[in-house]
């Protein structure tokens, strides 16, 4: 519970540290234990309070365990509760003593008062002592059957606690199926909700080892269960509603009328004052309508107002959580929110974490019609007293400039920033002007005139200085003083602490030299000399390289250092679209706040229930280095940083088929894209098929199992399968690609996919191989069901060839 005793921690009068107090308490408790004097309960209460308060501030009072238990023979419920709290805390470290408490807890489980029964049962299950589990089964069993809903509520969670102490005891007692029965029949909705929570946890944990559990887990999102819960949705507490709604997002309706029924039913949940309920509902709406473009758009329009209301009605913390989700939506559909931009204006008293998000949103919604007003507003913030926000605002203006076609007005504003004569404003603006010039070289004339007036002495920040130096080099022919400014910078070489700046200085002097050789020659000499003597390896290397290439041939040097440039049309996006989609799939979770998919910040064992997606995600990440698909992707991303759009288009052309296919599927929700194609005589597979993990997961979730079979592996195959990689390469040669793999001998698990040749129809395979039994469990899902048999044959033959030379 509380942090370990921190006796050295700063002391406030109410927080004693000492051992003497504890032994004092021990003595007093002992005196009271046997006493039956009137008023003894009051004195006990006082003592218990002290014990609990020590426990809270982190003093170890576990040595009082015996005395506390002795004193607990009481009918005073307040005392009982304090005692339960204490026992729950320390039983784990005192398993032997915990046995002492079993007796009175078990007795209390049969008390007349349901309150006491519930409390005792809860405490009993909270002991977390493995060798006491045998005492839990009986009371839990009767607790689940108790006539009082409070006791049942406690018992259901008790089952979950038992599962965490000893899974086998819990399963052997057949508690999960009892919970399932309760979930579908109990009259109390909190009991139902607790059953759902418990079953999600238990079956998710069991699913990895048991087929049945995995089926049960799937059954939770069956029509039967979902409709049963949805029909009672308003009886549930607001928190339980969130639980149910989250479950509904995983349900795949079979026809569109179902989708509308569900949405109509949940419509009024969007007016709930609890933001968690609203967001959970929004997620249901968004997920259900993914395949219906028009309706999906209407959903955006519908959820806008409730979300904006939540932003302004809650505490700043709640606004932050909702705003993060709005941010995600704004990034996906900027046009939907473009007329609401004023909602994203910052208020002066908002915390900076809120302001930051709002600035990002303003950048995202800026379009031709509102840019002028947004930029005007952002310029106000640039003069703000809150300097970090002022900086962000300037960056936001820059980002808007880079994404707009008509940047006329914005360039003017940026140049005004340079004239504001505030150091940080100048610094940020310089960086921006540099980026702007890389994209719009045509503005160089206006910009250079202003930049030329900035004294390099007023620019201290490395990034800004580097930007200024870059411009001096790049536009030295237009800036009268460029060689001389550079020269003075070179003279102060030793005072320049940032290696980045020194690197830029070297390059700028070189560029200047090519354009205005006589004026720059001496500066160049000095720069190269200083650079070669530089202690920083990169600076040293670059100087030496320049020196040698100049000696070799000046015109070659010019071609290398200052080649004609193409304007950058699109700056690289920092996040890949798969990551973004993945985050969208995890709407209403921390992923949205962190702007990272959950596998990046959660351990495997703490992934949420029913998160099938994570299972694969984890595997594929673990194997990323061996995964052909993902390494290709990295390469592609790297290229994106440098290529212009035209070039990108070309490289993308090769992938366009699968890209458009990805979208098809997103909208098709697993329904076959081309229904009822007569099965081709022979199945040919696309050798260059590609599929990203998130699409895979989505499909895997949605498609039914077409074929499930057990194959026998040849002894050679078993011998060859020492590590998953061997099989991956083999299957790939048969155009069956691996998306994720894992496991160790003798158990391996693979997820494969293949694509039909010249058709965007996928086959997904889960293959579990046990090398000791030589058997492979294969499950095949196909988008085009009619060809699944043909594919299965192909897969089987490919697998059978594994290990043969």
């Amino acid at each position, binding site marked *: 519970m509380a942090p370990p005793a921190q006796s050295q921690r700063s002391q406030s009068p109410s927080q004693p540290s000492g051992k003497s107090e504890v032994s004092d308490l021990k003595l007093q408790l002992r005196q009271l234990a046997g006493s039956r004097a009137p008023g003894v309960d009051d004195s006990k209460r006082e003592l218990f*309070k002290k014990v609990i308060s020590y426990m809270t501030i982190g003093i170890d009072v576990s040595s009082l365990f015996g005395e506390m238990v002795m004193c607990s023979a009481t009918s005073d419920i307040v005392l009982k509760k*304090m005692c339960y709290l204490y026992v729950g805390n320390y039983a784990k470290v005192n398993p032997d003593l915990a046995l002492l408490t079993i007796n009175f807890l078990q007795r209390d489980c049969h008390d007349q008062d349901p309150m006491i029964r519930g409390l005792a049962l809860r405490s009993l299950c909270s002991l977390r002592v493995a060798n006491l589990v045998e005492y839990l089964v009986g009371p839990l069993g009767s607790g689940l059957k108790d006539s009082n809903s409070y006791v049942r509520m406690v018992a259901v969670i008790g089952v979950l606690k038992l599962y965490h102490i000893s899974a086998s005891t819990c399963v052997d007692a057949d508690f999960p199926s009892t919970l399932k029965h309760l979930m579908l029949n109990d009259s109390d909705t909190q009991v139902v909700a607790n059953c759902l929570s418990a079953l999600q946890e238990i079956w998710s944990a069991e699913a990895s080892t048991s087929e049945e559990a995995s089926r049960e887990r799937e059954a939770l999102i069956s029509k039967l269960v979902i409709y049963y819960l949805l029909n009672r949705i308003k009886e549930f507490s607001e928190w339980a509603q969130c639980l149910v709604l989250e479950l509904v997002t995983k349900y795949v309706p079979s026809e569109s009328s179902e989708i509308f029924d569900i949405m109509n039913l949940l419509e009024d949940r969007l007016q709930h004052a609890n*933001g968690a309920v609203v967001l959970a509902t929004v997620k249901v709406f968004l997920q259900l309508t993914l395949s219906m473009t028009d309706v999906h758009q209407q959903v955006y329009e519908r959820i806008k*107002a409730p979300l904006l209301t939540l932003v302004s009605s809650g505490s700043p913390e709640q606004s932050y959580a909702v705003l993060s989700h709005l941010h995600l939506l704004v990034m996906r559909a900027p046009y939907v929110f473009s007329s609401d931009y004023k909602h994203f204006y910052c208020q002066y008293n908002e915390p900076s974490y809120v302001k930051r998000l709002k600035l990002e949103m303003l950048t995202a919604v800026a379009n031709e019609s509102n840019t002028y007003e947004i930029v005007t507003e952002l310029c106000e913030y640039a003069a703000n007293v809150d300097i970090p926000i002022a900086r962000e605002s300037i960056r936001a203006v820059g980002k808007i400039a880079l994404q707009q076609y008509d940047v006329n007005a914005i360039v003017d504003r940026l140049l005004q920033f340079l004239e504001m004569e505030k150091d940080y404003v100048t610094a940020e603006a310089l960086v921006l002007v540099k980026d702007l010039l890389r994209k719009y070289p045509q503005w160089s004339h206006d910009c250079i005139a202003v930049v030329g007036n900035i004294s390099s002495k007023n620019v201290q920040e490395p990034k800004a200085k580097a930007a200024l130096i870059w411009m001096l080099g790049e536009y030295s022919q237009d800036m009268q003083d460029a060689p001389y400014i550079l020269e003075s910078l070179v003279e102060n070489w030793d005072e320049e602490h940032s290696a980045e700046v020194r690197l830029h200085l070297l390059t700028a002097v070189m560029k200047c030299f090519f354009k205005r050789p006589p004026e720059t020659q001496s500066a160049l000499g000095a720069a190269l000399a200083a650079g070669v003597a530089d202690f920083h390896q990169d600076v040293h290397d670059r100087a030496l390289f320049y020196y040698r290439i100049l000696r070799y041939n000046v015109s070659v040097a010019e071609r290398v250092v200052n080649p004609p440039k193409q304007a950058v049309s699109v700056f690289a996006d920092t996040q890949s679209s798969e990551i973004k989609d993945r985050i969208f799939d995890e709407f209403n979770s*921390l992923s949205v706040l962190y702007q990272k998919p959950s596998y990046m910040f959660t351990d495997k064992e703490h992934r949420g229930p029913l998160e099938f997606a994570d299972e694969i995600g984890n595997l594929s990440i673990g194997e990323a280095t061996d995964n052909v698909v993902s390494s290709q992707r990295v390469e592609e991303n790297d290229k994106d940083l440098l290529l212009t759009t035209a070039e990108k288009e070309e490289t993308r052309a090769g992938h366009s088929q699968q890209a458009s296919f990805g979208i098809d599927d997103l909208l098709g929700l697993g329904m076959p894209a081309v229904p009822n194609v007569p099965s081709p005589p022979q199945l040919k597979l696309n050798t260059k098929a590609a599929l990203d993990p998130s699409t895979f997961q989505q499909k895997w979730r949605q498609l039914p199992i077409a074929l499930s079979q057990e194959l026998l592996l040849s002894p050679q195959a078993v011998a060859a399968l020492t590590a998953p990689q061997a099989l991956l390469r083999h299957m790939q040669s048969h155009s069956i690609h691996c998306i994720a793999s894992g496991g160790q001998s003798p158990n391996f698990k693979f997820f494969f996919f293949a694509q039909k040749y010249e058709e965007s129809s996928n086959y997904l395979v889960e293959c579990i191989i046990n090398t000791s039994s030589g058997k492979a469990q294969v499950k095949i899902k196909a988008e085009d069901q009619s060809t699944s048999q043909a594919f299965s044959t192909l897969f089987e033959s490919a697998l059978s060839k594994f290990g043969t030379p």
Partner: protein
Amino acid sequence: MISQFFVLSQRGDNIVFRDYRSEVAKGSAEIFFRKVKFWKEDGQEEAPPVFNVDGVNYFHVKVVGLLFVATTRVNVSPSLVLELLQRIARVIKDYLGVLNEDSLRKNFVLVYELLDEVIDFGYVQTTSTEVLKSYVFNEPIVIDAARLQPLGPAAIFMQGTKRMPGTAVTKSVVANEPGGRKREEIFVDIIEKISVTFSSSGYILTSEVDGTIQMKSYLSGNPEIRLALNEDLSIGRGGGSIYDYRSSSGSGAVILDDCNFHESVRLDSFDMDRTLALVPPDGEFPVMNYRMTQEFKPPFRINCLIEEAGQLKAEVIIKVRAEFPSNITANTVVVQMPVPKYTARASFELEPGAVGQRTDFKESNKKLEWGLKKIVGGSEHTLRAKLTFSQESHANITKEAGPVSMTFTIPMYNVSRLQVKYLQIAKKSSSYNPYRWVRYVTQANSYVARI
């Protein structure tokens, strides 16, 4: 699903600490506090309400200077946890009457009782003050509310207004009145927070009202209540930008952009006659939250002028005009204005005969502060300040100063014109006539004039 819940004082002491699942290591409270305290070295930025350290997610909300924290390793819904933390704070306040460090420390055993019932093994069981009543046996130790700073929006009624029983809002839901009888009363507060930004030329750039109808009921026997709002109230503006002022002005109707309701509210006849029906649960809760961007008359006009007056000197004139009826008085008004960084001194000149006003130059963050205890409707007040600079300014001085911001509270006034027309308590006996308090208040959220 959360793993731990704890409340830390401003100094970082544990006031209560409950571990529900023992999945997070024990030192979490300290890790959390260190992280929050030293979020950025320059101390300029607050830690966001949610962050992750070594796989543990920390959630926190600040309530009356205390940190309410939850931890988990699971990827949960952040709004659920943050909402829950707020709700726990509210439930505790319902029980203790007053929520602050002192009352928490005195009543921590009761708080543990609550926490045990609110959350079991990390799953929320109930946050209903009423349901919890049957599980909680400790009596709250009431602390002296009189010497406390008033808390929360409703607390403003305690000051100045003699008609209000001041202790009501700080009364525990379980505590009995001296004499053992409970006083039958119900409070309905219409609280509006307004945000207005004026451009340098005095135009309204943005304006918004965020309102709440807050209820706190001490009625016995849970009678049903009907709240009637303006009949011409309409919700949602069809199509177009909601900032299209022309479309709405002059019609006189109250048009809300959007609203949401507490789950106890039934809207059966809301579409017909704008009445809300509910059986109010115990404790304080928002019946309805609403948002309005319809044009309204801002209660204050602010004029600000800053001019250089010779070398190293400048003069600031701030004028505030109250544009509401003279039978209404705004209180606790504070006007603030950042001045250039290189301002060394400021001297103030108030209008002759000014009472209850104070002025201050905050050296540390270079701000002028002007406090007015009261502003009567229709009146105008002026502040002149002479600034002395420590260095010469090159840039445009108006870019270095401002904007002027203002905070205030105006009791018995609301800008949206949303009204509770009547408050009906369904109870048979004709002699039953509980106290009904319907109160309005307008507060500044962000009230800013650019210069």
